[in-house]
Structure formats: C-alpha cells, structure tokens
C-alpha cells in the first residue's frame, strides 16, 4: 500500500540511513499530502525518529533524499518547523518560558540583532495558543512534563511555518496537554498546515491522524488511515522483524561495510513526477 498524493508536502525518495553504521532505514520511499495530519507509526526501534531527523537535515542519509514542497530543505527552511522530543534538552538550563519560545524567531537574518517587536508579538500569541501565557516568565526548570511539551509547541508555532514535524509530542503528558495539542492540531489543519507526528501508540493513532505511514525499518504502508489500518498491514508492521534483513544489517555494521556504492547514492532529485 503506497498512495501517492499530488503536490506532496514531503517526498522521501529511496532513503537509506544508518546509525553507527547499522542500517536503520532501508530504501524508504513515500510522499505525504499537504494540509493533513500525518502519523508516522511503528514499533520501538523501527526508525521513526531517524526518519524525522533525516527530513530535518540533522542526519545525512546513506542514500536518497527528502524534498519539502518539491524543494530541498535549505530552500524552504523558514516554512518548516520542528518539535524535538522533550528529553533531548536539559530543562535545568537557566531560561524562562518566553526565552525558549523566542528561539523560534531566531533567523540567519537576525544574527547578532535583537528580536523585533513583531517577533515578540508572535511569541506572545504562540504562548496564548498553548495556554501558557500566565507562565511566560516562569523558569523552565519549574515546569511539569506537559508544560515543557507545550513550551516546545509554542516555540514551533512562533516559527510561523507551513509544515510541522513533531517527535512523540504525546509521550508523558497530562490530559490537559493532550487536549490542548489535539485542539491545536485541528486548528492548524483548518489553516491548511501540514503536521507530521511520530507516534508509537497504535490505539490513538487511528483517532488522531488522517494519513498514516507504517514503518518498521522499511516502509510497510503509506496512505489514508482507512486504507492503511488493515489487520494484514498492521501485522506486517508489528509482527516482528524480517530476520534476513536484520542479519544483513548486523553483518554490515560488523564489517564496516558501506551501505551504498558511490554511483547509487541519489543524493538529489526532483522526485517521481507528480510535482509542481
């Protein structure tokens, strides 16, 4: 199952990526529609975060590329926003809630400059949307887990992007935060934004998303949720690894073997037709 939308927000082309030389993603190839809530779903260790990090240019793939709105990341950077996993930073850092949200307005263009009044207004609006305006001056070390997640969300909203990539925003949050994230997602969708969320919980995935990518180190399916959520495909994604594939991966890591020969890297491209 691999449904191809027209004018995709994201096109992942033949992406192969490894972590410490061990292949984590094998020739993953799919495209995501614009203006939808998309869930990237799969079991632990299925390469979800690696996929997201490759989309955001935080990792260099061994082969293949990712195009956003038909262009490379560098050309559309300001249209793309990212919400990392909460635990990737030290929350004891000396900063206030507003300090962190303001980071969403940092740009190459305002290097060594102070933020403008307009920037500050956008940050205030973002904090209001996630319901944390009353905590704007609070030290981030004093926040609960759910509040931390909402601070990251506000920072991402302040970026004023068209495409949002979020890594496990629902993990370890309270009911209030879950509700507020869901309300935000609905609102973003109605404004025509595309939101891609890495999510590990199958039960809620069907409820939250319109489009689902099933991943287990390889692409199992990508399409509207009704078409992807079949017992057969779910079994394929969650029913265990392909043993031969993981043995090959282990062998490559052990032998320090390159994942791709030079001639087959496909580091750039315009995708598979159906473009702009």
């Amino acid at each position, binding site marked *: 199952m691999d449904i191809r939308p027209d004018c995709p927000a994201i096109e992942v082309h033949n992406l192969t990526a490894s972590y410490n030389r061990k292949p984590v993603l094998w020739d993953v190839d799919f495209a995501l529609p614009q203006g939808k809530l998309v869930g990237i779903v799969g079991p632990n260790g299925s390469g979800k975060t690696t996929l997201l990090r490759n989309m955001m240019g935080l990792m260099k793939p061994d082969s293949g590329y990712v195009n956003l709105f038909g262009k490379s990341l560098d050309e559309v950077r300001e249209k793309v926003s990212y919400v990392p996993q909460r635990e990737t930073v*030290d929350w004891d850092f000396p900063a206030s809630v507003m300090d962190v949200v303001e980071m969403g307005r940092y740009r190459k263009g305002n290097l060594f400059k102070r933020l403008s009044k307009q920037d500050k207004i956008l940050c205030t609006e973002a904090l209001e949307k996630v319901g944390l305006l009353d905590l704007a001056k609070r030290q981030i070390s004093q926040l609960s887990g759910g509040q931390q997640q909402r601070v990251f969300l506000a*920072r991402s909203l302040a970026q004023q992007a068209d495409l949002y990539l979020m890594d496990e925003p629902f993990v370890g949050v309270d009911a209030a935060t879950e509700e507020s994230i869901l309300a935000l997602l609905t609102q973003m969708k109605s404004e025509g934004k595309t939101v891609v969320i890495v999510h590990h919980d199958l039960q809620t995935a069907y409820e939250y998303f319109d489009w689902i990518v099933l991943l287990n180190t390889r692409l199992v399916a990508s399409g509207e949720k009704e078409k992807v959520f079949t017992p057969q495909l779910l079994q394929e994604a969650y029913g265990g690894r392909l043993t031969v594939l993981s043995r090959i991966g282990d062998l490559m890591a052990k032998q320090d073997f390159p994942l791709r020969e030079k001639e087959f890297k496909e580091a750039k491209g315009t995708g598979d037709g159906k473009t702009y």
Partner: protein
Amino acid sequence: MEKLIEFISFSNPNVRFVTLGTMFIGMSAATVGCFAFLRKRALVGDAIAHAILPGIALAFMLTQSKSPWVLMGGALVAGWLAMFLIEAITKNSKLKPDTAIGLILSVFFGLGILMLTSIQHSGAGNQAGLDQFLFGKAAAITPSDLKIYIAVGLVLLALIFLFFKEFKLLSFNPDFASILGLPVKRLRFVLSSITVLAIATGIQAVGVVLMAALLITPAVAARAWTSSLKILLIIAGLFGAFSGLVGSYISFTAPQMPTGPWIVMSLSAIAIFSILFSPQRGLVAKIFRQRQNRQKILTENILKALYHLGENQKSQQNYFSKKQLLNHRKFDAAELNKGLKILAKKLWLIERETGYKLSQTGLPEAQRIVRLHRLWEMYLSERMRLKADHIHPNAETIEHIISPEIEHQLLHELDYPELDPHQKPIPY
C-alpha cells in the same frame, strides 16, 4: 591596615598591574566558562588548559622569544588543535567523550613537560619563567601583559554580547539551531575560539593545573543565585574579577603567598557558600524547608488529635491532657511538647492545668485537617477504588499537602460529601 590602604590606593604600579590583570583574567574566564558549564563541557576546558603547554613551549623553541604575543599564538594553536582532536575522536571512533578528553589531556601535557625539560637543559639563557605556566605567574604581570589581558577581555565580552542569543540557543538546543538554518558550525567555532582564548590568558594567572577552576567555579557559584542566563554571565564575571582582587591582595600582604592558588581558593569559598546558602537552590534552604514540613505535620497532627478527642466526647469545649493525647496517637513525648508550645504561641489552643483545648482560631484549622483527611479518603475509595481498610495510611500524609485549590477541586468532584468511607462526618 597600612597594607590595606596601600593596596586600595593603587599607588604601587606593580600592585596595579597584578590586580587589574588578574581581575580581567578572572572576569574573562568566568564569563566564557558559563557556556562551557551549560554545554556540559567542564572537562574539555581542563584538557585544553593542559594541552596549551606544548604550544607555548614550541612557540618559544621556534622563536627563542618570550614575547606574550608569540607565546599566546602558540597557546591558541595548541588549544585549538586539542579541542578539534577531542571532537574528532568522539565523532569518528567508538571512544566516549570522557576517554577522548583524558587521552588528549595526558598526551599533550606529557609532551609539554618533555619540551619544557628539554628547553631548560638546552641552556638557552632566557628560558627562565616558562615553567611558571604550570602554576601561574600572576605576581609578575607586566604592563604589556596587562594590555593583552584587557584587550582579550573586551573582545570576549563584545563577542558574547553580539552573539548572546545564538550562544544561548547553541547551549540549550544545538539541533534546533541547525534546523533554523543558523550557521551552527561557524558559531561553534567562535564559541570554541573564545573559550581557548580565555584559557590561554587564564593560565598566565593560575597556571595550567588550576585553570579549570577559574573557568567553571564562577558559573557553578552564580547558578545558585539566578536562573537567567544574562544575570548568570554578569554574576559569574563579577565573582571571577572579585577572586582576582582577593588573590592579588593576599599575595600582596603576604609576599610568599602565591596569587593563583589564592584566586582559586577564594572562588571555591564563594562557590561553597553559594551552594550552601542560596535562597532557592541552597542546601541550607532545603534543610530549612524540610524542617518546616516536619513542623507542619507535627502541629497539624496535634490539632487533629484534639479534634478527634473532642469529637468522641461530642464537645470541642473539653480539655484534654497530654496523656490522653499520647493514648490517642503515638506521639514522641518530646515532639509533642514542642508542637504544643508552637500551637500555644500561635494561640490555636488554650492551655490549662488539666490540659488543652482548641481555641476559637485553632478549631477551624483542626477542622480543615480533618476535612482534608476525610475528603482524601473519599477520593481514594470512590475514584481509586481502594478498600476502606487500606486508605488511612495514605490519607495521613496527603492531608498535610493538599492546597486550597486542590481542596476546591476535590469538593467539586466529590460533590460535597457529608460522611467519609468510615461513616464519620466531614466537618465544613
């Protein structure tokens, strides 16, 4: 006293150079050190300081000059190389950062000692003073040294001021910085360079061995007093400068005393004081809070016991003796006396020879505790489905911490119940 006046008046030019020099060095290292501290790179600073030694020795061997500019150049190159190698080893091998740091520190330092020894035995007439880089040579700061320290200090401050928000993001969440398309590699290069620069000047005051203290200790001390990065930088800078002042003063009044170690000692004293006594993060404040909690629990338990005794006799006007209180609940006798004294002082109970009763102001407090206990028991049995004989120990603790807001929510959720799970009335 005379010495103090002479020191403060700055009339002695040598005192002036040493004091201003160490103050600038302390300030520069402390300010830059805040970022090393926040990026959890404290040990990298130590490794770079040690790695600078062979750079200085080599610069001297090549030029036979002891000009501070030449030695500084050698120090910068070696410091940079060390930092680059640590990152390269971590990235390209399976070695963890602590191993890479340890390796680079010892290899470079060993090389430096070798070079210093060979310089000393080569009989070059002007080599004297190079070994002072090991432990610092603050007492011998010259006017041309001072100019360098002031220049370095001002350049560092200017760069930090310019790149403040970028350095903040780089220290907090470097991935996000690169997602925004900021020139992360170049920013990191600037930050690393000013760190090496601060270390290269700092070792002239305190020497290679103590340099890490000058870099990290002020940040640690300042962190105890503030949670704002801007203020952290300012306080750390002031601590660094102040320790330079103290070190210079001590070595001035007692000439056989070395300046560098005294700078580090005064910094350590500031850090220890800060860690112990800062109002929010300090250990003393923590102990005080815990004591307050214990006292709250004790006095609330006494109020509750008096209420229960009165409830059993259907009158809150009766007086109860200590013995009755002890029979009702296993108080520690000394603790009970202490608690009764505190409550009497608050006028929450009235004392007679025959015993104690709740006062008009104490009764509502006692009712509040009993109400919270019984409400929480209701919550445990209705919402968490715990058995009635299992809920008491839990409620004994929780009753002391329920805030007015949570009480309000409990009342709302349970719809103002009249009886608790043990069929006792809930007092309102």
